[in-house]
């Protein structure tokens, strides 16, 4: 564990050191998923939630466990099924007897009352359950029987969904997808990573034995430090231009990439873009934002907030391809 600073004053250099240490620890557990690890760490310290999309067996659950262990956070897991009820996620009141012989209803918190919540296969839950979960993600609190109970801080939801088995699933509506700061794709590891994976996790579960890299109090301190990163006017304008570039109704020119977009990114995407880029700046040891930080987080921030035209989807285009063209053009102009 990295020794705590002797002063209560946050330090950018030390924050950079800690963040890089977390990423290095996770890289040792989740082999060959460096971009995925960096994205999740970024989202956690930016105060966002992550939707991971990938095939089964790629280590998504391991990653959540390892992240919780490295950050020293309390974590829980929700396996979504069609019969999962909202109370199974948020909690419910149970009738219990007290020691003095009286009985009363007592609220028993659900798995959402954790700092790091892994929601596995979220698209298998019914829309009602999804709504209960997504309300907790947005409001950071759970209201039950007229009583609001705040969720622990930091609070981060790592949701996964399977991109191929769509039968019997309830795809998340676009309005609820917007609640996730990042949508990260879990790629299939290459052969070298698979070879390393055998050495690391064949006979052991490295996520269970991963030591904590940070103290629990370090996470909110680093998150607050990230929020103090200076943003120049040029970077703000660049972020606005990037978000507006995804809006086919607002954009002036008729770029080839934009003509495939039916609905563009929301203003919430703009906020997520800046917050995530700030964490990237701290990870680079800077206290100021750069346009390259925005470019680094543009794709995971925007890919689930952009809807393509049906004709473009039939042509085989996906959001990543269209957004990559947009981001390239935006970087040339910025």
């Amino acid at each position, binding site marked *: 564990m990295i020794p705590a*600073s002797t*002063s209560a*004053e*946050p*330090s*950018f*250099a*030390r924050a950079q050191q800690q963040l890089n240490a977390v990423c290095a620890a996770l890289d040792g557990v989740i082999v060959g998923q460096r971009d995925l690890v960096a994205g999740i760490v970024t989202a956690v310290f930016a105060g966002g939630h992550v939707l991971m999309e990938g095939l089964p067996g790629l280590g998504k659950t391991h990653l959540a466990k390892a992240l919780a262990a490295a950050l020293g956070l309390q974590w829980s897991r929700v396996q979504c099924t069609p019969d999962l009820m909202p109370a199974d996620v948020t909690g419910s009141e149970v009738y219990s007897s007290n020691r003095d012989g009286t009985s009363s209803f007592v609220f028993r918190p659900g798995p959402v009352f954790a700092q790091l919540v892994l929601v596995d296969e979220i698209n298998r839950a019914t829309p009602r359950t999804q709504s209960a979960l997504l309300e907790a993600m947005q409001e950071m609190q759970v209201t039950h029987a007229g009583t609001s109970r705040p969720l622990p801080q930091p609070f981060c939801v790592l949701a996964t969904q399977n991109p191929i088995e769509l039968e019997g699933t309830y795809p998340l509506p676009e309005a609820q997808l917007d609640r996730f700061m990042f949508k990260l794709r879990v790629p299939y590891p290459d052969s070298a990573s698979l070879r390393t994976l055998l050495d690391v996790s064949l006979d052991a579960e490295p996520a269970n034995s991963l030591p904590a890299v940070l103290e629990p109090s370090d996470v909110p301190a680093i998150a607050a*430090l990230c929020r*103090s*990163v*200076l*943003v*120049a*006017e*040029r*970077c703000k304008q660049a972020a606005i231009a990037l978000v507006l570039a995804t809006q086919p109704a607002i954009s002036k020119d008729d770029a080839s990439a934009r003509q495939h977009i039916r609905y563009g990114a929301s203003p919430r995407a703009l906020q997520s873009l800046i917050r995530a880029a700030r964490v990237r700046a701290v990870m680079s*040891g*800077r*206290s*100021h*934002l*750069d*346009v*390259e930080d925005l470019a680094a987080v543009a794709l995971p921030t925007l890919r689930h907030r952009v809807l393509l035209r049906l004709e473009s989807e039939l042509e085989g285009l996906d959001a990543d391809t269209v957004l990559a063209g947009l981001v390239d053009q935006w970087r040339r102009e910025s």
Partner: protein
Amino acid sequence: MDGDRAGAGRPLTTHATDELLGAVRRWLRVDALAGASRSAAWLTVVVALIAVLLHLLVRPVSVFSVALAVTLTWGVALLRALVTPIRALECAAWADRHLAGGCAYETFLEARGNAGSRVAAPARQRLAQWIDEAAPRSIARLAATPHEARVLRPVAVALVAVLLAAALLLMPTQDHSIVANTSADTSTPGPRAQATARDEAREQRAEVESPDAARDRLSATNSDDRARRNGGGQAASTGEASEDAHESTAAGDLQPAATATRAASGGRDAGAGTDDATDAALSQAWQGELATTLRTLATPPPASSRADQSLAADYESATADGTATRPGAAFTPAAAAPQARRKPSLGPVEQAYVRAYFAAPGATP
């Protein structure tokens, strides 16, 4: 040692930043001057080309005026490049883009400008520290950055163009002023003056020749002119030859309506012919001059004397009264003005036909 704490308490200004921004400002100033020189050089080429074309085609151009234009071009371009202010924020933005600043210099200037706002002190101190480390690298990179504006080639081309133009302007050539004056004179007075000049020349020739020969020559010449200008309409107005006049009169007797129309369109004041659109006054002047000349020539002896306007006036008045009894006067009265449109008069046969037509049952007016 913690880098942030090492920079704590340091004011948000660094010598390296000011040095870098100053160097960038100088670089941008030189670049602006180079760009202005490039633009001025190409403008010089254009000025030289225009001067040569003016000199060859329109009027002579002095070398001094060309030199003045070139000097003005260069002066305005360079003065504008020198006077245009280069702000510190522009320098910072340029340094961020071209010297791997990563928006640090712009952020630094903005943070320094907003020193009283809620800007976190650790972030500012870390920024100042980052700039202290990055500025020397940026300055070294700036020193190795060449200016993009290529000046030598445009200046060389401009120099050659100016030298060639000066040589051409100073070269002794034929007197362009004559051509220029001639062209200017022929262009300004208009066709009326040309016609007047031609008529005067004919008059002078007629004075030195015998009256008969001059009359024949003028008659032929006027016939050509008449045919060239407006066909038969001129004949009715000038009254130059008896044959023409008779033909016109005969045609008017046979076809009254057509004659009226022809007289109106053949007259220069009709305004319907293509020729009339050029100069309405031409026909009037031509009429007056030719009529005067022809009347003078048609006057009986003494042949050596000059034709007199009063004689012509007497002749016209006499002709109008129907008392023209001069021997040898074969001219019909000249129509000094084109005939106005008159109501066509029908002959007895035509009138009887019209009356019979309207008297018939079922006739429509």
